[in-house]
């Protein structure tokens, strides 16, 4: 089953998106090794680091009109710094992967299962 591994920051974001010092380079290499491994084992479905929440735009349609908003739209999304989408056997497997994300050492990983049978994201029945 697929899991979205959300990287949520508990504080300042220096560890992942700070200036490129020696420590950061070593960490980026760790992320790259994890990515390669996830691809080789067929678990990789996607993943990105997000721009800061100040770059976000909120959109809603009310009374038929699109209304935009500057900044994060969801209360906790300013803490969101990136995500992985991985295909795992079960929660234990997803826990193993999450424990290998360097970010777990300074932030929190939320392991969120994907609703794989939800018809909203599938094509209409044949």
């Amino acid at each position, binding site marked *: 089953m697929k899991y979205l591994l959300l990287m949520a920051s508990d504080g300042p974001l220096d560890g992942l998106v700070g200036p490129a010092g020696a420590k950061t380079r070593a960490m980026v290499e760790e992320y790259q090794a994890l990515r390669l491994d996830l691809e080789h084992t067929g678990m990789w479905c996607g993943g990105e680091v997000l721009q800061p929440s100040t770059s976000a735009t909120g959109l809603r349609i009310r009374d038929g009109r699109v209304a935009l908003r500057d900044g994060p739209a969801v209360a906790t999304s300013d803490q969101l710094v990136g995500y992985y989408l991985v295909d795992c056997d079960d929660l234990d*497997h997803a826990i193993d992967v999450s424990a290998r994300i360097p970010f777990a050492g300074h932030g929190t990983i939320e392991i969120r299962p994907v609703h794989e049978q939800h018809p909203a994201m599938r094509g209409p029945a044949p």
Partner: protein
Amino acid sequence: MRESHGRAVAVLVGQLRDFDLAEEAVQDAWVDALRTWGRDGPPDNSVAWIVATARRRAIDRLRRRQRQDRLATSVGEELLSGPTPELDWALDDDIADERLRLVFTCCHPAIAPESRVALTLRSVAGLTTREIARAFSTSETTMQQRIVRTKQRITTAGIPYRLPDADELPERLASVHSVVYAVFAEGYAATDHPDFVRVDLVDEAIRLAELVCTLLPDEPESLGLLALLLLHDARRSSRVDADGSLVLLEDQDRSIWDLELIDRGIALLERAGALGKPGPIQLQAAIAALHAQAPSVEETDWTQIAALYTALLPIWSSPSARIGHAVAVGMADGPDVGLAALDRLDDDDSSRLLAARGHLLERAGRSREAMASFESAAESTRHPLEAERLRRRAHDTRKPH
């Protein structure tokens, strides 16, 4: 019957990956059993019969569900299209494996601790929701919701139904142990319960600990847990006197302690020790064993108990272990040493800590301070029986010895 029920549910959960369907199907099978066995007599292997019948009932239920809802689960499709397996898979070894998987699933660390306890009592021990609600002084509706949510969580979060790998086993087993201990502790110091001991929960915890030891016979901490529970339980009858008041360890009538349980506990502890992997639960059981074997408080091997606590604290630093250590040191090396150890604890002034201080102050001959300490302890406990016992203790302290 409870035992067969638990086994059958475990096998069915393993096959269906659906707690509710498994439980409903097993209940259906019991209804069939009442009818058939009454007429033809019970079969040789009643568990296998129940499992086979429940499986057919589950398929009936799935077919009905499928008609109502075209979105059948993959497990359901598999079950409906696959061949009916022989009864072989209902052999005892397989059932043992299924039960163990179920225990680990219900005690998975990704489930909130109180939900682990509730689901284990429901699905492994086979208690009714009403019984569990009563045991934890909550409403049946609340408990029902908690159990339903936990079952849903297992499915949606993808909590696996399998035995942990060797490297995961210690952590997972520790979670199982704490669930079993929580059931025991709730039974042994039952909050708001007139008898102060809920025998049903105590027995249930011992049954669960026995089950784990049967399924994993070479896990020293599991053996230690069963030993610990039996050694505590051996003192059950002496903890409350004829008036229903709590009796302190030093005043308990040691002649009514259950020697058979004590012997079983010590034998289990020796078996655990022979495996050469000491751990926190074995240390606590060893402390309980020394108390259980001592003819009186004075003749207790306090030096050895203090040494066991010293080994325990770095790996298991609970408030009661820290207090137990200070008291043991006080009994072994003199009350002043014990009082100094208590003063070093930065725990809140819990009832237990105040009572321990009163106890050591009394031994140091400081009766007035001891009395005050027992009285504060009585005020800060939430158990009415415990409060009464401490007030009596404060009163006794006033008398010259």
